[in-house]
């Protein structure tokens, strides 16, 4: 009797421990995918403001290349998407053109374009998500600010990625007008930095691969990648993106991201 009782208790304990354990130790693939995305996002935030030079080299299938250069100012927002001011420097015919973006977590981004030849500020539709950004293999949505709510996540596996080990997750855009049915995202285990993204088009065929390289640590806290290579498997075109002169905490304020600032951006 005593033994029976003891045996029951043991079984009960084992049962609760294992069930409880399995709940704590192995979350569903969806939960784990979300946790990875959240951790990656957490490690990218808290920088306040930054500015950098952004150089894109566009290569077509015949190997011809073109350069696009712009400066980007970013202001981090606490409870909503970040603010961006992008000022174009090259090619020369669009020099001085500037774009102001207030990204939002739950609604469409607000976007204004300043055309220096006409001295005109134009509010533009931010629905243009899947279209090419300046003729490159990057689309507008590839640059939109990362918000957790924009995707559904699913962790798939761990696997080596170059010299590192990576989590591999599937991201499915939840916003309208995306050019992608899904993305496969590789984050390294050590720092949760994106190493690679495979993009699948609306017909669920592999469209593009992004390789993210040259991570540098700023202010001992923020990892930022200096080289991005986007290859389009369907058109055989590619775009290389280089960031340079990255500066954090330059003291930018809301006044550097208003319409008056947009009009005087040079």
């Amino acid at each position, binding site marked *: 009797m005593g033994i029976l009782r003891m045996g029951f208790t043991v079984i009960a304990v084992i049962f609760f421990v294992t069930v409880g354990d399995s709940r704590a130790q192995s979350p569903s693939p969806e939960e784990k995918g979300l946790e990875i995305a959240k951790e990656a996002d957490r490690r990218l935030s808290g920088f306040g403001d930054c500015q950098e030079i952004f150089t894109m080299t566009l290569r*077509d299938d015949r190997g011809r290349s073109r350069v696009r250069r712009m400066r980007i100012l970013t202001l981090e927002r606490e409870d909503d998407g970040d603010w961006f001011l992008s000022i174009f420097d090259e*090619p020369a*015919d*669009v020099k001085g053109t500037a774009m102001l973006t207030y990204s939002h977590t739950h609604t469409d981004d607000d976007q204004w374009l300043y055309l220096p030849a006409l001295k*005109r500020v134009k509010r533009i*539709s931010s629905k243009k998500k*899947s279209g*090419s950004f300046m003729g490159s293999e990057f689309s507008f949505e590839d640059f939109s600010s990362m918000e957790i709510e924009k995707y559904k996540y699913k962790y798939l596996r761990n696997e080596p990625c170059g010299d590192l080990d990576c989590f591999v997750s599937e991201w499915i855009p939840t916003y309208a*007008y995306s050019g992608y049915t899904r993305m496969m995202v590789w984050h390294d285990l050590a720092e949760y930095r994106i190493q690679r993204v495979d993009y699948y088009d609306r017909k669920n065929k592999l469209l593009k691969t992004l390789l993210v390289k040259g991570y540098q640590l700023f202010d001992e806290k923020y990892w930022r990648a200096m080289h991005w290579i986007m290859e389009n498997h369907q058109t055989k075109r590619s775009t290389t993106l280089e960031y340079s002169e990255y500066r954090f905490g330059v003291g930018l304020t809301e006044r550097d991201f208003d319409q008056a600032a947009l009009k005087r951006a040079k």
Partner: protein
Amino acid sequence: MHTSKRVSLAHLAILILLFNANLAWAIELTGNVGAEFQHFYKSPVRSDQKSNNVSVSAEAELYYPFPDSKDSITFTPFARIDQNDSERSHVDIRELKYHTVHANWELRVGIDSVFWGVTETSHLVNIINQIDMVESSSGEDLLGQPMVLLTLVRDWGYVDMFLLPGFRERTFPGRDGRPGSRVLVDNENAVYESGAEEKHIDFAMRWSHTIGPWDLGVAHFYGTSREPRFDPLVSKVNPYGETVLIPIYDIINQTSVDIQATFESWLLKLEAISRSGQGDPFFAAVSGFEYTFPDIASLGVDVGIISEYLYDERDFQPMNNDLALGVRLSLNDMQSTELVAAIIQDVENRSRSFYLEASRRMGDSYKVSIEMRGVGNVAPNDPLSEIEADALIMIELGRYF
């Protein structure tokens, strides 16, 4: 004494040289040069007007940002030399301004250009600068305007306060110039309502604000009308025996609103003005929409559909009760190929005008632009009949630096 003075002068000269060298180093130069060919495919009104025309233009922007501040000086001269029209050969200072930026205000002093408005086929509320009509009849090329512009930055929007000393007359094509008008306009003997003539000091104020999807502007202008009035009785006869109208510039009060609402792929637009002081007080408005189909068939091409209704209470206006339909194409390719075209038709007499503008980058620093403008189905008494003969096709090659 003599020597020391010479030394100090030499020092001064070196200092000035060094300072200038630093300054020259800090000045940013951008600009473009362009060569343009125009073809007029209809017979001219006057026998001296040619079917083909070549012209060249240059614009440079010298920008000096003051170190350790957001203040700057900008100087933008522009020049065009035209083969056939001496009135179109002209030089203008588009900008020469000092701009100072502070936490809640900005000030511009000098010559500058300002654009107000949201619609595509007409620029009704835009009034600060005179239109450079010899450059283009689109109303998008503006002459530099002397101004003091104080901008207040508040939580409830921007307030722009303009003091506008000095008026610029509208530039009209000469007798040989095309595109011109059957009606000739005198560019030298304008008549002013104000005794101060072109020295009348004008004022304007504009409040603008963004509230969610709404971009709003309300403005008032008091001063010399940028748009001249014509009176058949105020004219002269030129040596060819033709009547030349003399522009009359009245003192006007104009209140305007411009509104754009941006909902997903819809842009809803309104511009409206109420003007008094130029004949009977009148009201005019443009309103419509632009809807964009982004990334059509996953080809990366954006297609926008534009429709606007144009109303003007005045009788003899080319766009007094007209409907515009247009299309905008952006290929989003490496060459940034773009096209916008529109047809504007009078609802009553069906007279119409059209334009097409397209551009494409070539290499890194060239851009080729094509433009077509013309009218069709013109009723005999419609103001468009005056420009019926000067439909044009134009190609321009620009080099940007």
